[in-house]
């Protein structure tokens, strides 16, 4: 057993940085899920599919624009918007008729989208691996303590806090954010004041799915874009939302941090079963705080 034999301080530091950039992606995806769950009470299983579609769209758009640096930036900009548009159509067309149903039906309904999207992606892009390369100045690596640290990860480390700040601003400082938070607590009351709750829900759903698409577009240069990436991320996002507290954005950030760091440090300790560590963290958190670390909205 090579348990813990290959840990040096520098390797640990590097793994933490890698974990933090992984946290960024997890946070962006999980916060979208958390938002939808908190306000609309939909456990959106299709969130992972939208993340996958975001990645594939980013690939397709970048290829369309010749695959150069400008292609990457346009893809990063357009892919989440494309995902948001898809989500807008399914929300207005289908979901908005089902809000009165029980959670189980809503969950199964989003699962139906997982099934459909999974096959649609296979129809459109086939089942091969795809990859997207970042612009040249984000390629390569810095060296930190003689260990290479990819520039793109640094880019992610900058994006993450920006998204968190943006979300905080949106939910706390803008009118729609305040309405959405009120609707999360008491939707009848908000409706009684004369606000069209249905459209508030649509807006929240689209923003949540936009975040899934953004996560997918951001992750595209760091890994193979492939079938099945939807199934992996959604479970992680669920876990993060549970640790953080349903519907709490900061909880999602905290959960993503715990998940990302335990995962990346776990790789040092026990490479084959690194996945066990984040789950252990979740179990420990839940033994002490069954409803998550931070206050949930419901």
């Amino acid at each position, binding site marked *: 057993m090579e348990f813990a034999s290959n840990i040096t301080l520098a390797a640990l530091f590097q793994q933490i940085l890698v974990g933090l950039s992984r946290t960024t992606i997890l946070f962006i995806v999980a916060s979208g899920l958390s938002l939808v769950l908190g306000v609309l009470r939909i456990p959106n299983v299709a969130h992972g599919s939208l993340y996958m579609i975001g990645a594939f769209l980013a690939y397709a758009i970048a290829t369309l624009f010749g695959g150069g640096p400008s292609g990457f930036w346009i893809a990063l900009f357009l892919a989440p918007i494309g995902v948001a548009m898809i989500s807008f159509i399914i929300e207005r067309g289908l979901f908005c008729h089902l809000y009165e149903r029980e959670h189980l039906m809503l969950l199964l309904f989003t699962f139906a*989208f997982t099934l459909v999207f999974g096959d649609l992606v296979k129809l459109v892009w086939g089942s091969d691996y795809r990859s997207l390369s970042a612009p040249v100045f984000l390629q390569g690596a810095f060296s930190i303590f003689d260990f290479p640290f990819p520039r793109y990860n640094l880019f992610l480390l900058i994006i993450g806090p920006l998204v968190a700040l943006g979300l905080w601003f949106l939910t706390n400082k803008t009118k729609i954010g305040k309405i959405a938070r009120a609707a999360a607590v008491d939707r009848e009351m908000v409706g009684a004041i004369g606000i069209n709750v249905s459209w508030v829900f649509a807006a929240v759903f689209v923003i949540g799915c936009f975040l899934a698409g953004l996560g997918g577009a951001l992750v595209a240069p760091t890994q193979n874009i492939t079938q099945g990436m939807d*199934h992996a991320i959604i*479970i992680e996002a669920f876990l993060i939302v*549970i640790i953080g507290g349903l519907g709490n954005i900061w909880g999602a950030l905290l959960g993503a941090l715990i998940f990302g760091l335990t995962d990346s440090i776990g790789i040092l300790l026990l490479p084959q079963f690194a996945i066990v560590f984040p*789950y252990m963290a979740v179990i420990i958190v839940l033994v002490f705080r069954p409803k998550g670390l931070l206050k949930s909205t419901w």
Partner: protein
Amino acid sequence: MILFKALFSKKSAIISILLLVLLLLLPQFLPRFYTYLFAMIFAICLLATSLNMVLGFGGMFQFHHTVFYGFGAYAFALFVTKSGLPLWIGYVIAPFCSALLGLVLGLITVRLTKLYFGMLQLSLGSLVWAITYRWYSFTGGDDGIHGIPIPDLIGSSTGAYYFNLIVTAACLLLMYIIVNSPFGRTFQGIRDNPERCEAVGVNVQKQQLVGQIIAAFFAGVAGTLFVTVEGSVFPDLMFWTFSLEILIMCLLGGWFIFMGPALGAAIIIMLRTFVGIYTEYWTLILGIVLMLLIFFLPEGVLGLFLKKAVPAEKREG
């Protein structure tokens, strides 16, 4: 006999016995492929019914039920291939392994309710899947274990058919008795109003934990039946999408009716087999079927049928 009368209405008893006799005769007329298919359907019927015991009758959001199914199948497969002890011991032990997993996961999950419970179960079940998927030296990783030796008596397609039919029928009967026992009634009370049950003095969490263990046990039995038919196990058995497919079966058949999920399972497996001949995009079709179902048939096929056939006051709640 009094117990029997209390449990079964005359009509449902006659229908069940007729169905059983019909199924017992069926392999004489069926081609081999269909015997195999039916044997598989029996296993999935048992799985779906065991899920429905906690879902439809207990109101628990059991989102990751197949983890118990897969765990039972793996326990059985590993026992058969690694221990060298008689086969029947494996059939006995595997369901208890599943029940044990039900206990362990349940201890963590029943502290939460509804959606929290379901999401946490989904996540923890995925952990079991991930470990199975990675542990090459023990579980065979993503290849799984193939060529598990099952003696011809129960391993041939006709043998598997009869074995699965009998075990499934026995388990369904057992579950039916459980659902209608005082335990099952309490369970339904919790489904309809957990606060009141708590106030009346029912230990809701303990009840749900026991319910989960029982359901996990029967899921484990279904797992061993799967191995009997298929002779192999692989990690996909406990992947979370499969769990939600079982949920779809319960929904399709109607989850407030005992036999609903079994019917749903039969329909879905048949559909998958026959649609799969024509197209590789089976999940696309399943997704669309599911959407239509939720919009137009939320009570399920059997629910709709009973609504049409039996007047409302005669049906039980």
